[in-house]
């Protein structure tokens, strides 16, 4: 076995498996570097194993208490689950606020425009005239430009 394989076994292999143990043991006997590596690995592994073992062995876990607490949790979760239409509204609540604000703004704007239009009665025809004049001007300008392009 090569050192690389030994490291691979230390990282992924299960020490509990006899084949892994004997392979590592065999290699470590002839390779001081891997022997040191294997010792450190074993110490670290036993540290990870012992993380929760400092507590006194699990005091009798009260099944009834657990069951009651889980039952209470389940009931609380059931009560807190909103109805389908409620959950749909909750999920789009922020968008609803945005739509409402936009709608209010548009209503206010159109209301103001309507009031202004009523106040200055003849304004609309004047605007229409301006628009039609403007289009006529633009079309004559386009025609002139086309002529100039053709001449070029």
């Amino acid at each position, binding site marked *: 076995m090569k050192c690389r394989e030994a490291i691979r076994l230390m*990282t992924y292999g299960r020490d509990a498996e006899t084949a892994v143990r004997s392979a590592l043991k065999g290699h*470590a006997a002839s390779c001081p570097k891997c022997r040191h590596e294997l*010792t450190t*690995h074993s110490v670290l592994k*036993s540290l990870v194993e012992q*993380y929760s073992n400092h507590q006194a062995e699990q005091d009798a876990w009260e*099944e009834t208490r657990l069951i009651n607490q*889980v039952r209470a*949790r389940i009931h609380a979760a059931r009560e807190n689950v909103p109805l389908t239409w409620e959950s749909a509204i909750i999920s789009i609540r922020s968008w609803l606020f945005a739509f409402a604000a936009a709608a209010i703004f548009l209503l206010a704007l159109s209301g103001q425009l309507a009031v202004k239009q009523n106040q200055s009665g003849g304004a609309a025809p004047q605007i229409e005239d301006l628009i039609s004049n403007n289009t006529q001007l633009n079309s004559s300008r386009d025609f002139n430009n086309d002529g100039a392009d053709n001449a070029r």
Partner: protein
Amino acid sequence: MLINQSIETTFGVGSGETELAQFNAVPLTADDFLIEKTLNGDEVAFESLMRKHHKRVFSIARRFFRSRETVEDIVQETFSKAFFSLSSYRRGAAFDQWLAKIAVNNCYDELRRRKKRSESLITDLSDDEEYWLESKLSQSAFDIHLSESEREIAAEISGKLLVGLSPEDRLVLTLLHAENNSIREIAHITGWSEAKVKIRAFRARHAMRKAFARLRKAEERKTVAIQGDRTK
């Protein structure tokens, strides 16, 4: 091995044939039967499942957390999540593994929450702990056995060592070394690919070695400082 008859015998169900007819295709377990009853509104059946599996869930949570409140919270959360996801459980699969998966994911979420809140506090090794480490590192790898008092010291060092690791590293190391899972089992539990688990395991091992070296260097610096004070 299936078998309606055995389930009927175990639970004393007379009309089992009709109840279980739809599941004849897959081998059903006793857990499947209890799950089916729970899905039909029988809460007592779910209590039986809890009684049967709570020790395993408790032991998983304890691998990751020491505080009893946290452990209890994770156990309760695991069972309530399991209750609401029972319909997604595939009949015939191992229920304890399915439950373990939920428990491990809960522990992982809690580790990540704690990391975000930066609840980690790295402290130096005490003299006893350093002495213990020295003695263990001088032994042969296959001769490391811990007495009761040594386990307490090991647990203290372990807390200092693991607290600095990322949640991913802790998850992989715990599943690999404390729970003794294979790479394939970890991939199944975490939902990661086997290649990802291998990469994670390799990185986690490296991170733990670094944390270990940091702990020991801090101890060495402390010793040098004490010796310096004495010579003055």
